[in-house]
């Protein structure tokens, strides 16, 4: 007689893992999207409503992706967007981290800068995009500036929090054993604040991607945002979805990469920080 424990499970364990379920969920979801599109496009009401002007099916998206890829258009636009992203983001890192550090260590400067920082942080900086366009015109530089404005504040504030929460006793130990200020900085402050700073970078990635897109929607000669706007004004939804898919993949990749970097730079911190910074990541 077979015991209950020995009976083969109905579904294999590897099929029940969350990765499998996630993959199935995505595939089934895309399938539903395709079927719903086919069904809707055939109904009288939606045919009159011209649904194909603002919704594309997954198959059409793939087809459009192929077309854009072959014509080199996708590459050109992605290249410009990437350039703006990299310039703006690097500028944000170069300015955000030192300013955050200074604010954390110099009390007086913190008191003076704090009202400005918290006020601009609360402003949706994309609202400045039209004004920046009036000032600097079209092109890579003004768009990078919008990216910079979007990305700098999460980096600055997280650097500030990170440096502020460096454990005092560690600094005192290094000092007591005759460590120079440089040593305190490089051996204690930077490693102890690194996880928080990287969390700031991760938050900034999301904001920077949105800023790239918004800046390009406004004024650009190339870029994914420009591509999306161009085609959506011509009632062609395919490229719009291609643009979104490319940006989603880019966003998730960068996010995971920085997560990996966090584990690699400060392995002793990884799981501790995961709990602590969970809220901060949810922005």
């Amino acid at each position, binding site marked *: 007689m077979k015991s209950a424990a020995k009976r083969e499970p109905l579904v294999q364990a590897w099929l029940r893992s969350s990765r499998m379920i*996630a993959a199935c*969920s995505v595939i089934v979801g895309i399938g539903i999207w395709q079927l719903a599109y086919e069904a809707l496009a055939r109904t009288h009401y939606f045919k009159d409503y011209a649904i194909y002007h603002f919704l594309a099916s997954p198959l059409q998206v793939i087809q459009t992706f192929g077309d854009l890829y072959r014509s080199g258009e996708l590459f050109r636009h992605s290249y410009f967007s990437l350039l703006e992203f990299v310039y703006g983001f690097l500028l944000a890192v170069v300015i955000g981290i030192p300013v955050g550090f200074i604010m954390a260590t110099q009390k007086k400067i913190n008191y003076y800068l704090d009202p400005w920082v918290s006020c601009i942080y609360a402003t949706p900086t994309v609202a400045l995009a039209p004004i920046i366009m009036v000032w600097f015109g079209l092109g890579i530089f003004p768009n990078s500036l919008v990216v910079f404005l979007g990305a700098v504040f999460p980096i600055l504030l997280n650097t500030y929090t990170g440096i502020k929460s460096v454990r005092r006793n560690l600094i005192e130990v290094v000092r007591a054993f005759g460590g120079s200020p440089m040593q305190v900085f490089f051996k204690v402050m930077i490693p102890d604040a690194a996880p928080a700073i990287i969390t700031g970078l991760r938050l900034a990635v999301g904001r920077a991607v949105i800023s790239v897109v918004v800046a390009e929607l406004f004024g650009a000669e190339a870029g994914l945002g420009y591509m999306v706007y161009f085609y959506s004004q011509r009632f062609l939804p395919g490229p719009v979805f291609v643009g979104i898919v490319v940006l989603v993949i880019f966003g998730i990749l960068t996010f995971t990469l920085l997560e990996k970097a966090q584990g690699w730079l400060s392995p002793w911190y990884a799981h501790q920080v995961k709990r602590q910074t969970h809220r901060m990541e949810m922005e």
Partner: protein
Amino acid sequence: MGNFAHVYRWHEKKFDACLSVILGLVAWAILDSILINNPLVLVGPLRIAEAFTRLLYRGELMRHVYATLVEFALGYFVGVVIGIGLGVLMALSRTVKEVLSPWVTIWYNAPIILLAPLFITALGLGLASKIVIVFIGAVFPVLFNTYTGMTIIDGRLVEAVRAFGGTRRQIFFKVIVPGALPLVMTGLRLSVGRALVGAIVSEFFGARAGIGYLITAASEGFRTAEAFVGVVLLAIGGYVTFETLKYVERKIAPWYEYRV
């Protein structure tokens, strides 16, 4: 004088903040009116104040603020209700969580703004398209934080209630809801920013009124001062909402430690 120094030291942060704002505005005004003096390039605080009163008297300002407020409030409200609902469902049921989580990740990372032109072609220039965009922006931070708040609850508390004969209902209302509340509030606070961006950007593309519309219309007409009125209003609105929610958070859960 010694008394003043004492008061100053006591409230040093507030004094310095006020001083910094005043100095900043004065420097800005001097730079604007003496050094550069070109209303197209730089607009000082005086010009912005002037444009503000002008728009206010014409009644235009109220119209724009009202339009944005309605879009924001409706989209945000629907986003909060659905976000909390789905977050609770995901926390309670493993299946729901595993089926939904890849989609939540994808949508959360997607620059929803790109859909704005499509929503406007589909739903028109009016309120509907904006509400949808604000909704999509607002829903995910609330959802994520509700889910996290409900899952990081200390298991010992649940066990203690159970050991003393608490029902499932009691566990839910006496432990899980109060425990998750601070994080839910954080979610509400974080989604304000995203919802505001959604409202503004959707107005950039096509609208008849709203702060985003004011900004684009003004900057396309090279009336930079008026565009800045919109930006300043947004800054004040964002700051006030953010601080109010932070205050409410502290009132609801004073034991909770805040970081952002």
